C-alpha cells in the first residue's frame, strides 16, 4: 500500500515535471534522495492545511457595516445626538479597528475596485464590493455619516480631538488638494497592479494590529498628536476615499444641518466645527459691478483646456519615474544593469529571477509594457488633476449667496458637534 502511494506520488511528480518541462523549474530538478520505502510499515504523516477563516465573518462584517451606517444616519439626521454618535464611534473603533484589525476597509477598497477594472486576472470578493459601495450610497443620500461614526480611521482621530485650533481657511482649503493627488496615485498604482499604497501607508493600522513598521507607527502617532489640535488631519488632508465621499456628499439628498429649524444668525456655532466645515453667511457687497467677476470666470473657463493640457504634459514627463514603483520594472532595470555588466553582484530579487530560468528579454518586454501603461496612466491622471484644479478655481470665482450658517456639504463629516451650540436646538428641547 505504501509502495503504491509512493508510486502514485512519483507518477504525479513525473507528470508535473513534464508539465513544467518548458519552464525549467529548479524545485523539481532536485530529487536527489528518492523517498524511502519503509520496511517497518511507517505511515507518512499528513501535511496539515488549516483552513482560512470562514466566510461567515466576512458577511457579518458587511452586516455590521450596514447596521452601523443606518444607526449613524439615524443618530445624525433624525435623533441629532452627538452622544449617540460618540458611542457609535467607540463601537466602530473597537469592532472594525481593534477587533477586525482594520481590514478590509472602505478606504482601501478603492484599490481593489480599480484593479478589478483594469487587470483581468483579479477577481474581487463580494464583501470588498459591499465595503466600497455601501458608504458611497449612504453618503449620496444622507451625507458623510460614514465618516461621522463608522470608519475606524475617522473614529480613532475623532476621539483625539481635544483642543482644536483654527487652521486658516486658505491653508485648509489648499491642503485639501492633497487627497486628490493621493487618490490619483492610488488609482494609478492599483490599475497597473503595482502597489496598494493606501494600505501600505495606512497610518493607524499599526495601532489596530498592535504591531507594524516603526516608521508607520511613528507617522500614526504623529498624526494622532497633531489631531489633538488639528481635527482629523488624515480625513481632511490625506484620505483618498474622502474625495469620492465628498463628491457624493455634495449631491446628497439630505444632510445634517446645524440648526433643527430656522437659523437665527446668532453666530454661536461659528467656531464650533473643529474641521472648518461651517460656511458663514456671505457679505452683501452693494456696489460691486457684476461684470468684474464675470470677466474672471470667462478667463478661467477659457483657460480650462490649458490646465488639462499642462496636466497631461506633466504626466507624460513623470510617467517613467512613477513606473519604478512597480517591482517588475525595478527588477527589469536591475537585470539590465547586470546583463550589461554595469553591476557585478546579484541581489535577492535578481537571484530569484535567474533561478526561474525565464529569459531576460521576456521580463524586458513586460517592463516596457508596464512603462507604457504608466505613461498613459499618468497622462490621464495629470489631465484629471488639471481639470479638477480648473474646476476648483472656477467654483471659487462663482459668487454664492448664503444668508445662514450652513454645513459645507463637501467637508462636513456629520459628527454633530455643532448641534449643542445652536440655541434653537435647546429651545426646541
Amino acid at each position: 500500500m505504501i509502495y503504491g502511494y509512493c508510486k502514485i506520488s512519483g507518477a504525479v511528480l513525473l507528470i508535473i515535471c513534464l508539465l513544467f518541462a518548458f519552464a525549467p523549474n529548479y524545485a523539481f530538478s532536485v530529487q536527489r534522495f528518492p523517498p524511502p520505502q519503509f520496511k517497518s510499515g511507517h505511515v507518512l504523516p499528513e501535511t496539515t492545511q488549516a483552513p482560512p477563516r470562514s466566510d461567515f465573518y466576512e458577511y457579518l462584517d458587511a452586516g455590521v457595516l450596514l447596521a452601523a451606517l443606518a444607526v449613524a444616519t439615524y443618530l445624525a439626521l433624525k435623533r441629532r445626538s452627538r452622544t449617540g454618535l460618540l458611542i457609535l464611534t467607540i463601537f466602530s473603533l473597537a469592532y472594525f479597528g481593534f477587533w477586525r484589525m482594520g481590514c478590509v476597509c472602505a478606504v482601501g477598497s478603492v484599490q481593489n475596485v480599480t484593479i478589478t477594472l483594469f487587470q483581468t486576472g483579479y477577481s474581487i470578493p463580494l464583501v470588498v464590493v459591499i465595503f466600497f459601495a455601501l458608504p458611497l450610497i449612504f453618503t449620496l443620500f444622507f451625507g458623510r455619516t460614514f465618516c461621522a461614526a463608522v470608519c475606524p480611521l475617522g473614529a480613532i482621530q475623532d476621539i483625539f480631538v481635544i483642543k482644536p485650533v483654527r487652521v486658516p481657511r486658505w491653508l485648509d482649503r489648499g491642503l485639501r488638494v492633497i487627497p486628490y493627488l493621493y487618490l490619483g496615485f492610488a488609482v494609478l498604482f492599483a490599475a497597473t497592479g503595482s502597489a496598494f499604497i493606501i494600505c501600505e501607508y495606512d497610518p493607524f493600522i499599526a495601532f489596530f494590529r498592535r504591531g507594524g513598521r516603526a516608521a508607520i507607527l511613528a507617522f500614526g502617532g504623529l498624526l494622532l498628536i497633531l489631531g489633538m489640535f488639528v481635527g482629523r488631519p488624515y480625513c481632511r488632508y490625506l484620505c483618498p476615499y474622502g474625495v469620492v465621499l465628498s463628491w457624493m456628499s455634495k449631491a446628497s439628498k439630505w444632510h445634517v444641518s446645524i440648526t433643527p429649524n430656522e437659523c437665527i444668525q446668532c453666530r454661536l456655532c461659528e467656531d464650533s466645527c473643529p474641521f472648518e466645515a461651517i460656511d458663514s453667511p456671505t457679505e452683501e457687497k452693494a456696489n460691486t459691478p457684476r461684470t468684474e467677476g464675470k470677466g474672471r470666470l470667462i478667463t478661467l473657463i477659457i483657460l480650462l483646456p490649458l490646465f488639462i493640457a499642462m496636466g497631461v504634459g506633466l504626466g507624460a514627463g513623470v510617467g517613467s519615474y512613477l513606473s519604478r514603483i512597480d517591482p517588475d520594472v525595478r527588477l527589469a532595470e536591475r537585470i539590465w544593469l547586470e546583463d550589461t555588466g554595469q553591476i557585478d553582484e546579484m541581489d535577492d530579487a535578481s537571484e530569484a529571477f535567474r533561478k526561474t530560468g525565464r529569459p531576460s528579454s521576456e521580463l524586458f518586454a513586460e517592463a516596457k509594457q508596464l512603462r507604457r501603461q504608466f505613461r498613459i496612466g499618468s497622462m490621464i491622471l495629470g489631465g484629471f488633476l488639471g481639470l479638477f484644479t480648473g474646476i476648483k478655481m472656477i467654483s471659487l470665482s462663482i459668487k454664492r449667496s448664503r444668508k445662514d450658517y450652513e454645513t459645507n456639504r463637501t467637508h462636513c463629516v456629520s459628527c454633530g458637534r455643532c448641534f449643542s451650540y445652536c440655541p434653537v436646538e435647546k429651545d426646541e428641547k
Partner: protein
Amino acid sequence: MPEKDKDKISRRDFISNTIRGVCLLGLGGTLGLVATRTQAGDTVWQIDPNKCIGCGRCADHCVLEISAVKCVHNFAMCGYCKLCTGYFEPQPNALNTGAENQLCPTGAIRRSFVEHPYYEYEIDEELCVGCGKCVVGCNAFGNGSLFLQIRHDVCVNCNECAISVVCPSGAFKRVNASKPYILKGEEGE
C-alpha cells in the same frame, strides 16, 4: 420677491438632483463593471513555493508579532536523510539533536528515528517563525520537501500583505480561499 426665491430653490434642487443622478449612474456603472468579476468567496494570500528563495523577510515583515508564514513539510517528497541539510548546521559536531548542531534558530524541527537509516523531520508550528533557513538548507542539498506557506489559522489576511511588498521573488499571490495552499509537489494543475 418670494416668487423669485421659490424659483431659485427649485432650480437649485434640479441641479442637485441632476448631479445626484449622475453620481448614481457613475456608481452603478462602476459596480456593474465590477460585478462581472465578483466572486462570493474570499481570496487569501499564499506563497508560491517554486518562486520562494527563502530570503528570510517573511520572519520580519509580517504585521503579526510572530509571522503567519511557517515552514511546511511535504513528507512524500522527503528523503528521510540521516544528515538532513535542513536540520543540521553546515558542519555539525555530531548528528544528534543537540542545539549547537541545529540550523533552526528556534528549534522548531523535531527529528525522530524511523528505521535505519531514515529519520523523520516534523515542524512545530508553535515555534516556527518562518525564517526559511531550513528551506534554503533543504533546497541546497536535499529534495526541497521543506517550504514556506502562509498558515491561514494565523494569518489575518490583510488587503495588501506586508510581506508581499518586500518579497524579492514575487512569490506572494492572492489565491482562492477554497484552495488556500500551494503544496510543493502537489500543484498538478
